[in-house]
């Protein structure tokens, strides 16, 4: 079974190829089912590999299947080979598992869309790329998947390409990711120069050899990879693309921009943990601080968002920050743990929000929602489960993973812990805010547009601000302002009448919600802290981490205390939200600057559009004026001197004679200098 690991990415690839050729002919829903089948098949194989791996001895749970040599050049050689080990299979399991669910969901969600089959082409390609990223046995193959998922992300964000905002968002995602990829690439150069290989596993793999690295080299590699991870996993300062990425169809947001792709940065850092361990101590600390700062930063922004998906997007950024906090604190298991649980509940909530959007007839503004729990019961219940999970309410999955991260953070530095805790509080607050605005309170939908703003005011949101001014790029904002929401403006989407009576989604969509809700409840069981027997994930991942996991030295009492404090913080956040948004006892404080994301993005946009563009244009003008100008200048100079010389050719025969005489005199003068006496 282990030798079949190559089949895991191969199935979605086959699905992709078939759909590419015959997707249009298959049409709806055939294409969707085919894609789902490919993904599901992949999941089945992954489970098989997982079981086979379980059957292996604890320290032999690493298996490589090499297909062919990809890039051999001199001493440099990269194979196309897949590595099945606990870490990669963990990832592969939830990628294929959640991926399959989202495929299923998409069949319902994309119903009636003109690009139905195209959508599944991209989805399968994405699953393939993601699996290559996860299973690849070397940095370069990971990079292949890395760029592949980025490209798919680009395709999918700009899926409804006729809207400029979507196209811009897709482009932005790609380019921001590329900035990170620069770090990844340079990291590979350094690695190859130092170790002569890019392969992970094996005796001469970089993981085995990592302890030979000089700390400075290891630090360089680790931080450069972290730059890459920042891009992909939307950490400060490269997170700007993720909120915009919500322009893609909602299943995409769930799959790519919440559950799988964005966690690949965390995966990468966990994968190269020996290198991180070899670096200077300040390197992990830096990562932890970047992570926690991102977590807090994004959480503050999420507090003031009004777009249902935007809240989730910033929440994702924030949760990814947690994961990096874990990585930086040496809590790889906790990072992976949180990654998995987060995948469950965040996918759940995104799909839930998709269901809401779907049911609302493509409405995304939470100010126009409310009271939906009665009309969309399944969606509401599952969403609420997700909410409880992310808010850190025990015994939901999120509580366990977040708690573990905070524990390790506390051990590393109480300051980290404090910030993390504050973030947890905020998280609980804004998630509650979202739930209350969407599923509880008054029904603010179904009114005429002019009335809507009044209702918005009634909902406690400061009126007067443009509905769509959510701190996006100006293009995006413009499109929102124009009345259409940036996500689904395809007329063919099947929901002609906007603001029609909200309704529950079809079973294809609700089924995945239910499954994910279940996982969100029990997900914590993967790694319960009570006894070491229950550290399932930790023991499972142990061979990969090779003792690089931080050994914490915290008394049990402290542990419990920390957990209690965390729960209290979560509850405080919820309570505050209840007070503000449900009972409306306190006027909401949603500063404009938060709604605009601390104007971080707009500053970048302003810079890129202002001085940045001016700089580019200056270079372009330099090319035209100076470089090409010099070329044409030489030409003009030549012709100019030709014109000047022409004046000598007066046409007067006597002046010609003079010229001739001058020549004679010159020759005589020259020759007379050569006279020998």
């Amino acid at each position, binding site marked *: 079974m282990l030798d079949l690991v190559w089949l895991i990415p191969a199935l979605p690839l086959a699905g992709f190829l078939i759909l590419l050729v015959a997707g249009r002919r298959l049409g709806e829903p055939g294409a969707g089912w085919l894609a789902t089948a490919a993904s599901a098949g992949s999941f089945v194989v992954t489970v098989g590999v997982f079981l086979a791996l379980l059957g292996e001895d604890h320290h032999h749970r690493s298996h490589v299947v090499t297909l062919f040599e990809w890039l051999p050049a001199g001493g440099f050689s990269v194979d196309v080979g897949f590595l099945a080990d606990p870490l990669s299979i963990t990832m592969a399991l939830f990628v294929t598992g959640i991926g399959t669910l989202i495929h299923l969901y998409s069949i319902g969600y994309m119903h009636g869309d003109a690009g139905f089959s195209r959508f599944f082409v991209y989805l399968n390609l994405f699953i393939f790329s993601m699996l290559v990223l996860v299973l690849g046995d070397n940095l370069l193959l990971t990079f292949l998947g890395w760029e592949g998922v980025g490209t798919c992300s680009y395709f999918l964000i700009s899926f409804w390409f006729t809207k400029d905002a979507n196209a811009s968002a897709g482009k932005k995602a790609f380019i921001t990711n590329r900035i990170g990829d620069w770090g990844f690439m340079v990291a590979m150069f350094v690695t190859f120069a130092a170790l002569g290989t890019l392969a992970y596993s094996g005796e001469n793999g970089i993981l085995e050899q990592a302890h030979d690295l000089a700390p400075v080299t290891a630090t360089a590699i680790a931080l450069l990879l972290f730059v890459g991870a920042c891009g992909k996993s939307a950490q400060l300062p490269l997170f700007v693309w993720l909120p915009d990425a919500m322009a893609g169809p909602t299943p995409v947001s769930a799959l790519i921009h919440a559950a799988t792709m964005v966690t690949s940065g965390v995966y990468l850092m966990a994968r190269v943990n020996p290198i991180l361990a070899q670096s200077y101590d300040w390197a992990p600390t830096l990562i932890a601080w970047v992570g926690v700062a991102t977590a807090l930063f994004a959480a503050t922004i999420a507090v003031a968002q009004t777009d249902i998906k935007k809240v989730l997007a910033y929440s994702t950024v924030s949760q990814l920050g947690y994961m990096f906090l874990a990585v930086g604190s040496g809590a790889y298991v906790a990072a992976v743990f949180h990654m998995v649980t987060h995948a469950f509940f965040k996918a759940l909530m995104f799909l839930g929000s998709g269901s809401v959007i779907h049911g609302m007839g493509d409405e995304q503004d939470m100010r126009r929602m409310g009271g939906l729990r009665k009309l969309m019961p399944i969606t509401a219940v599952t969403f609420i489960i997700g909410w409880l999970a992310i808010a850190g309410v025990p015994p939901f999955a999120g509580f366990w993973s977040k708690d573990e991260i905070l524990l390790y953070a506390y051990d590393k530095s109480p300051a980290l812990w404090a910030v993390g805790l504050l973030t947890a509080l905020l998280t609980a607050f804004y998630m509650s805010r979202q739930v209350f605005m969407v599923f509880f309170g008054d029904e603010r939908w179904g009114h005429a547009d002019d009335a809507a703003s009044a209702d918005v005011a009634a909902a406690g949101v400061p009126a007067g601000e443009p509905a769509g001014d959510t701190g996006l790029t100006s293009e995006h904002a413009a499109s929102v302002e124009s009345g259409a929401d940036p996500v689904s403006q395809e007329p063919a989407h099947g929901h002609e009448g906007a603001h029609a009576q909200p309704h529950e989604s079809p079973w294809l969509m609700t089924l995945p919600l239910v499954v994910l809700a279940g996982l969100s409840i029990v997900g914590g069981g993967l790694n319960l802290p009570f006894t070491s027997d229950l550290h399932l994930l930790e023991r499972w991942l142990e061979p990969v981490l090779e003792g690089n996991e931080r050994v914490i030295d915290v008394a049990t009492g402290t542990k419990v205390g920390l957990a209690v404090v965390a729960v209290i913080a979560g509850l405080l956040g919820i309570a505050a939200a209840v007070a503000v948004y449900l009972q409306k006892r306190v006027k909401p404080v949603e500063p404009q600057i938060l709604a605009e994301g601390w104007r971080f993005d707009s500053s970048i946009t302003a810079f890129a559009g202002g001085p940045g563009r001016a700089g580019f244009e200056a270079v372009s003008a330099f090319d035209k004026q100076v470089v090409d100008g010099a070329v044409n200048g030489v030409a003009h100079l030549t012709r100019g001197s030709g014109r000047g010389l*022409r004046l000598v*050719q*007066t*046409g*007067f*025969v*006597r002046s010609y*004679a*003079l010229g001739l*005489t001058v020549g004679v005199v010159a020759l005589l003068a020259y020759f007379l200098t050569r006279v020998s006496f």
Partner: protein
Amino acid sequence: MLAIAEVTPAWYLVLGSLLFTIGAVGLRVRRNPLVMFMCVELMLNAVTLTFVTFSRMLEDVHGQTVVVFVLVVAAAEVVVGLGIMVALLRKEPEATADDLTVLKG
């Protein structure tokens, strides 16, 4: 004084060069094509004088024979030159050398 005034072959050479220069300058300053021809003739004759002088100095007779050739050539040149000139003047009777400036640049 007489010794100084004695006419050596060098005098003829100097005279020849002077005549040559006069011819060259004349061609440069005169605008009448016919006069310009005569200047050329003057130059040729100056050279002839030089030849003869060298012939005398070198006590070699061959320099003098050259004169015959030069005269013939000069005559041929004059014939052709005048022919061209006449053809031109027939078209533009008052033409001077400076009027021939259609072709330039």
